[in-house]
């Protein structure tokens, strides 16, 4: 295997349909719109004083319990550190979320592929530029939808 692990083709269709139940409704935990980091304004009321989830685009598809375990009770912004342009704007927005929206915490959820750690870096850069300090957490999702790590950084 060679090439970028972020775009390498892997098929685990044999493994995905393991245990877990199909019964019961899972309501959406999304409480806002828009959600894309370029589209959201740090001034939006749904960010003020909140716990924020900064999610790499792919995580919501990879991790089955995304709504219940991570989105619930939080406001969200999503981005892709590999493909999105103008990422300096992202750093400024994170800074503004911390300083102006006075968010409570920032949790960054990313995929395990190396390029995805760029989003954690954006979060760290924004937090460093901010004059307020807040706790920042990093959650890494494996390609097969398992949580590999969750720690405060």
């Amino acid at each position, binding site marked *: 295997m060679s090439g970028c692990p972020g775009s390498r083709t892997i098929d685990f269709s044999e493994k995905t349909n393991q245990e877990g139940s199909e019964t019961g409704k899972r309501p959406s935990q999304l409480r806002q719109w828009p959600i894309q980091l370029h589209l959201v304004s740090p001034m939006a009321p749904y960010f003020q004083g909140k*716990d924020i989830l900064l999610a790499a685009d792919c995580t919501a598809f990879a991790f089955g319990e995304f709504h219940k375990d991570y989105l619930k*009770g939080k406001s969200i912004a999503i981005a892709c550190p590999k493909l999105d342009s103008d990422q300096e704007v992202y750093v400024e927005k994170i800074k503004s979320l911390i300083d102006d929206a006075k968010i*409570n*915490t920032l949790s960054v959820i990313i995929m395990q592929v190396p390029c995805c750690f760029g989003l954690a870096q954006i979060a760290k850069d924004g937090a460093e530029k901010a004059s307020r*300090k*807040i*706790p920042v*957490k990093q959650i890494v999702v494996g390609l097969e939808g398992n949580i590999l790590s969750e*720690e*405060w950084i």
Partner: protein
Amino acid sequence: MLKVLNREIKEIINTYPEVGRILEEYGIGCVPCTVGSCLLKDVVGIHNLGPQKEATLMYRIEKAIYPDRKISEPVVDMTTQSAPKKITYSPPVKKLVDEHVLIKRLLALIPSIAEYTESSLRVDKNLILSCVDFIRTYADKYHHMKEEDILFKYVDEKAEIIQVMYKDHDTGRGYVRQAVEGAEKNNKTQVKENLLAYRDLLTQHIKKEDEILYPWIDRQLSTTQVGEMFRKCNAADASVGDELPKKYEKFIIELEEKFLQEVTK
């Protein structure tokens, strides 16, 4: 077994000393604990041993208490076993762990200070009172108050482990009062004994907090609570000002210089 789980650990160890030995093997130091009123189930739960270790430990305890019973050895699925985790603290708790470092630097100097007191003609009152000022202001007012007023409020304050922590803080304050009295009365033995007792107490206390209590509290905190506690601790720090921790760090550095010289002299 259910009944035993709800009994106080000291009582169990007194009746079945073998249980104390088994707990020690697992690094659970209940035998020397001064209170020992934690329930067995909490003692095991608080140490976060992981399913494999916990099941084996409970099996061995049950065996020790009921040697005649037929108990089957636990079968734990090794594939679901998680690797032992290194402790990671949330940012506000990490700050408290970092504050322990400066307190431990004073504790490390106490034997030299005690020896120096012993060999001096008179008690060096200024020296003792400056150490007491560090303990009362930095360790107690700055650090212990954040534990008591903020951190402990996030868990059940009636929990035995929290009660033990309160009791340690109080016992420590007693030793300090005694040391001050010794310094006032020029009683070398009283100064020395109380400083050394304070050192033993706080060494154990900090170890319990770093390794058991703080991780236990951290496991119960939600992300929202971590953010809130971080703000409260920062506000508490801001209320005493930036200068306070700097001043006491400088004090410790100077004390280290003085006593390292004493040793090499």
